[in-house]
């Protein structure tokens, strides 16, 4: 009873707040302070947008806080569970979390479609836009980072082994190349956190499964992780592991740095578009040694593009200054000027179409000796399916990671462990397993 009353009161408050927000005259001078929660480079990007925003709204003070990732998820979750207490006004939220926040805390985030966010919809990739919206058309996040797969490879190691990267069309080709590279240079093809005790270690499987147009769940929300695509992905990983070309390197940023700096050799790093800037900034000495291309297809002629996550900017439902918060989001994400400032400051790959088409966005990188952003724009142009994270992504991710650990550490059968993982997720969530 008590909880129900509180919930009703909260709902009523949020509704009134929205009503006033929607009717506020746009010409009215905005004042006050808003805080923005983000982390490291994305926070730098948003910080860079503040100066331009303040030219339009000099009365608003914007404080961008780097609260760290993954700490930000616990902070937001705890705040949401406490009815929105203590949250910042603008929240930078990952695509893997936003669906669950929208559904679990219906008043936690402001429905931005009520303040005109729909006008921006056509300017962003539709799949990415859809994942930040609810089933009934509410818009709860404006895409900030839009990541596609980024396939980085060591030119020097490929050359040393006499393998021409252009001859590699599929992941099976890549595995054969990996064996040659291992023999010629001693370097492993890829690295994985086999025990997955530092972070989840599902990135490669997700990429391979995405490249086959599948994921943990289908569009109807049924479990597909143990379907033919998911199985084929894990079988490839097992083949590579059995061939001895997978190095066991614990996850985490420091170990990623060792690999991009070449202190730990790996021939290939299948990462995402956000990593391109990181390579240039963190490993300048490796210029010319790293190459970038589209990922190989799993099936010859198949997709060579995948959406590899992304983030959104949302406005907290309890923000006392929703209008100013929304204006900031709209400026940073929905104007070319704001996008350019944000991109210059943080380097996160944007989804805003006018930005992608703007002069100078695609330019040659001396580091990779390639037009880096062109790869990512090409990927966005491919017909990649909408990735359905659902509310149960975290559970599916955990169940998959455990299954993969059994395959990599004790040689378990991929089909058996994937079926077990799917059954576990079905039992936890009440979802059905797709045929």
């Amino acid at each position, binding site marked *: 009873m008590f909880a129900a009353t509180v919930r009703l009161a909260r709902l009523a408050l949020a509704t009134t707040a929205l009503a006033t927000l929607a009717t506020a005259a746009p010409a009215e001078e905005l004042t006050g302070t808003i805080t923005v929660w983000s982390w490291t480079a994305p926070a730098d990007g948003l910080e860079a947008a503040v100066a331009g925003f303040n030219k339009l709204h000099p009365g608003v003070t914007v404080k961008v806080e780097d609260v760290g990732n993954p700490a930000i*998820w616990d902070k937001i979750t705890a705040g949401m569970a406490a009815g929105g207490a203590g949250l910042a006004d603008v929240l930078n939220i990952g695509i893997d979390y936003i669906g669950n926040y929208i559904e679990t805390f219906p008043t936690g985030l402001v429905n931005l479609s009520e303040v005109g966010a729909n006008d921006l919809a056509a300017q962003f990739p539709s799949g990415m836009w859809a994942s930040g919206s609810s089933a009934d058309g509410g818009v709860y996040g404006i895409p900030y980072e839009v990541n596609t797969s980024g396939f980085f490879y060591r030119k020097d190691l490929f050359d040393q082994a006499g393998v021409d990267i252009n001859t590699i069309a599929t992941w099976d080709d890549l595995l054969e190349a990996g064996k040659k590279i291992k023999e010629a240079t001693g370097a492993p093809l890829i690295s994985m956190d086999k*025990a997955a005790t530092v972070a989840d270690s599902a990135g490669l499987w997700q990429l391979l499964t995405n490249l086959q147009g599948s994921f943990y769940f289908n569009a109807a929300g049924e479990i597909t992780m143990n379907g033919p695509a998911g199985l084929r992905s894990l079988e490839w990983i097992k083949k590579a592991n059995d061939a001895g070309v997978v190095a066991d390197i614990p996850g985490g940023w420091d170990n990623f740095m060792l690999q991009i700096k070449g202190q730990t050799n790996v021939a290939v790093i299948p990462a995402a578009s956000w990593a391109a800037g990181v390579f240039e900034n963190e490993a300048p000495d490796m210029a010319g040694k790293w190459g970038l291309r589209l990922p190989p297809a799993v099936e010859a002629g198949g997709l060579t593009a995948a959406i590899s996550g992304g983030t959104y900017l949302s406005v907290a439902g309890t923000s006392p200054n929703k209008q100013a918060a929304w204006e900031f989001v709209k400026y940073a994400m929905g104007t070319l000027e704001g996008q350019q400032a944000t991109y210059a400051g943080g380097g996160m790959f944007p989804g805003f179409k006018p930005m992608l088409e703007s002069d100078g966005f695609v330019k040659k990188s001396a580091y990779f000796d390639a037009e880096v952003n062109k790869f990512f724009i090409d990927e966005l142009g491919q017909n990649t399916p909408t990735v359905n994270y659902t509310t*149960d992504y*975290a559970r599916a991710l955990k169940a998959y990671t455990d299954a993969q650990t059994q395959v990599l550490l004790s040689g378990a059968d991929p089909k058996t462990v994937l079926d077990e993982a799917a059954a576990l997720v079905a039992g936890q969530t009440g979802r059905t397993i797709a045929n």
Partner: protein
Amino acid sequence: MTSSKLQPATRRRWRGSSPRLTPYLFLLPVLVLFAGFKVYPYLYAAWLSLTKIIKGQTTFVGLGNYGRLATDPIFYKALSNTLIILITQVPLMLGLALLLAVAFNSALLKFRAFWRTAYFVPIVMGLVAYGILFSTLLNSHHGLVNFLLEAVGLPRVPWLADPVWAKVSIIIALTWHYTGNSAVIYLAQLQSIPGELYEAAEIDGATAWQRFWHITLPGLRPAITLTVVLSTIGTLQLFDEPYVLTNGGPNNATLTIGMYLYQNGFKYFDFGYASAIGYVLTGIIGVIALIQFRFLREKQA
């Protein structure tokens, strides 16, 4: 100033009219904190454990979460992990603590204060520093422990990446962290055992072992009861060490009930289920603590 006039008057009135109220007034801050930060969360969690969020609405589901728990293979895995750590780590740690306490109390030991402090320091160390320390020491590629093992010709051990060794690592970390604490409790009790008992026993020709068995151990019984019950409760609630060292892995080999509760609440936002896990854990702790108290008390009588 009016306040200087008012305050003594008020005080006098309290003192005069109801002298029995005063102790409760002193207790009030604690009672308010206890009600706000203990009683209210307990009751709210009890209510939460009977609910599930369905389409954004907190919905009453009766004992549904408890029913789901009864058939959840991961919960049983977490329960068995926790019990395995409990039955190996608690006796190991308390045995070590007992030996340390006897050594600390021995007249033969030089630099006693130094040794006592050295063994007690780990308990003061913060969780994060402690986590970083152990994950660095136990790192399978460039950790100090494996370096030393290799130096003496032993093979490297996948400390945090193998299901069995990961449990061993957790047990080592726990033991390092808490042994000093129990040793200090034993030491305090040891110093309350009258020296005459030992002198009399020595005159009667009792060996050192007989003195330990018949004087030291019985004298320590209250401290042993206390540490057994406290360590058992602490281990059943185990969270910090697996959280910082192994994240519950690999493949749930170090997933404890506390970790599983955290995952359900903060990773899956399933607060109802997490609360149900909390209540089942409370029940388990209650039953085990009751048995231990009864067992140790009967022996005393």
